């Protein structure tokens, strides 16, 4: 098992004919993902590297049975693309696009949620269920099948983490990049609940950063449940307040979002907070080596 995506995922790529869309579609296929359709308006009826292209998500979903979409559409059209996928009944919509206006994301989030669709992202690297399927842009060569769940607000830090785990011979069940925007479709807490319910996941790595209260809310959830061991990391520990550190959501503002409150919340919930990616690897190795708790 794994969470959210696996060998039964039938993937549709919105924006398949663009530069990033076509490059990463090839990469996802190389990983073994079942890419069943692409959507680019006015290019319906053509093929992109062997994958049929449709004008609309509705038509693509109806003809191919796609059950997951990944969005590479540029920012001005990305919120619309999310809503188109939700309207077509796609249950999981992975939004890679960065720089979507926040008001547009708020609309897309509400629209999709009301239709029962889950958004991952936006501004995220997607997700990988090791050895089963990849949806997004994470580098293929890093992953190894195993039992650690990884969830992160950062793209590149996720790769660092997976690289560290795989280097130690520790595999991953599913790795989820939830995105660096102020509004994201799937939170740390949502993802932790999926991992808790997945028998294949034995331990969890959570990589947070400054900004917002998602880490604090995750710590609150962890404190109130008897679940799997979690190791946390917070980046931006030395970031100055009031400055947006790259991610639209990575800003300490109005007394909210500072690293200390996040670290304290995790520690209060009994979650060790590592200082380096290497230290996370060590702690996870210790947890996996310990005899199973009764």
């Amino acid at each position, binding site marked *: 098992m794994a969470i959210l995506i696996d060998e039964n995922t039938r993937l549709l790529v919105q924006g398949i004919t663009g*530069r*990033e869309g076509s490059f*990463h579609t090839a990469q996802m296929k190389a990983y073994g993902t079942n890419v069943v359709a692409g959507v680019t308006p006015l290019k319906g009826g053509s093929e992109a590297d062997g994958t049929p292209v449709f004008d609309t998500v509705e038509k693509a979903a109806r003809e191919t049975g796609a059950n997951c979409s990944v969005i590479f559409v540029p*920012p*001005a059209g990305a919120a619309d693309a999310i809503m188109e996928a939700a309207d077509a009944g796609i249950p999981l919509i992975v939004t890679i696009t*960065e*720089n*979507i*206006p*926040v*008001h*547009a994301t*708020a*609309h897309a*989030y*509400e*629209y999709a949620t009301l239709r029962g669709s889950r958004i991952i992202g936006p501004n995220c*690297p997607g997700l990988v269920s090791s050895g089963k399927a990849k949806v997004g*842009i*994470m*580098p293929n060569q*890093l992953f190894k099948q195993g039992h650690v769940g990884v969830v*992160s*607000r*950062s*793209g*590149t*830090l996720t*790769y*660092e983490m997976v*690289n560290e785990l795989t280097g130690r011979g520790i595999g991953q069940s599913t790795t989820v990049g939830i995105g*660096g925007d*102020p*509004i994201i479709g799937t939170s740390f807490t949502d993802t932790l609940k999926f991992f808790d319910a997945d028998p294949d996941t034995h331990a969890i790595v959570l*990589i947070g*950063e*400054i900004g*917002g*209260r*998602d880490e604090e*809310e995750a710590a609150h959830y962890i404190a109130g449940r008897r679940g799997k061991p979690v190791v946390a990391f917070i*980046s*931006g*520990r*030395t*970031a*100055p307040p009031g*400055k*947006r*550190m*790259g*991610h*639209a*959501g*990575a800003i300490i503002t*109005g*007394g909210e979002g500072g690293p200390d409150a996040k670290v304290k919340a995790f520690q209060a919930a009994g979650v060790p907070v590592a*200082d*380096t*990616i290497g230290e996370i690897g060590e702690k996870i190795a210790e947890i996996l080596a310990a005899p199973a708790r009764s």
Partner: protein
Amino acid sequence: MKLQEYVSKDLLRQAGVPVPPGEVAETPEQAEAIARRLGPVAVKAQVLVGGRGKAGGIKLANTPEEARQVASQILGMDLKGLTVEKVLVEQQVKIAREYYAGLTLDRSKHCFVLMLSSMGGVDIEEVAATNPDAIVKRWIDPAFGLLGFQIRDAMFDAGFDQDAFKDLQKILAGLYRVMEDNDAMLAEINPLAVTDDGRAMATDAKIDIDDKALYRHPALAQFQSESIDDPIELFATQEGLPYVKLDGNIGVIGNGAGLVMMTLDIIKQVGGSPANFLDIGGGARAEIVRKAIEIVLMNPAVEGIVMNIFGGITRGDEVARGLLEAASTMDIRVPIAIRLAGTREAEGREVLKGSQFTPEPDVAAATKEVMKQIAERRQATAGSHA
């Protein structure tokens, strides 16, 4: 992008929100002329820092001569590191009551929120910390917007003046329109004043526009230059690269916000001091890497550069080519250490083979290498002066 008070008030005025009559002056003579038309005025420094009043950036003037005098004091003054270039000369109002009204994003609830408080005129963060019950909140459904009954409910709960109720209600509806129409992340009137003759108006306003939405607000994009005070940050923003100036001597370039933040943290852990945050983002091409080096070197304090590239969308060979291209077309006089991994890592290393850039295994090693070379250069310089 934070807007100056006078721009924020223009947006509010256009949405039908009453604001005190006022105009912008860049010279004491202009301030005097404006005061001649308006009568007793307040002269307010237009800089994006909090606590302008306490720092001497807001002064009252009862005659045109006085207006010229205080404007000459305020124009050119240094307010928390910023030079005042414009003042807003505004008719004085006699305030009977002050409220707070703000619209901002509630990240956890995935929507915007209206906040009202009868404790106006003070820092709302202070109210939130000391007396959170004094802030009334109503969450806004993105599909329907801020509804009339929500505004009324919140006003009753916050204890707003019932005599000026309809005017205050109109102001809040206007504030919401301003936020919605301009993609604001924050739209705040503080104080929201009721004058001693019973009129409601916005006597100060703060609006922060979503940078990602500027493409659909070309009229506001022109104010970007006055919203960013650091010239390197302004240049980088215009080049589309997120850059934050810090106070150290090691320039930093990386791809991915989280990765760059961690790079800064590691540099500090090993005893170094980062000079900046710079994220070249996903899909970075050679040209962007060259531009990034140029931006980092604009800061004269930079004595060395640490690059941290872990490829996803960004391809290692493109970064490597960008680095070589930059080296061949620029006069780079500082050491650069690079850590390269991820997509097309092997190809990237191949590109760098035989060049002056040796890939380091991790950020700590790259930082130590740069710090070592900085120390050697300082010693050599000291030696040559001896």
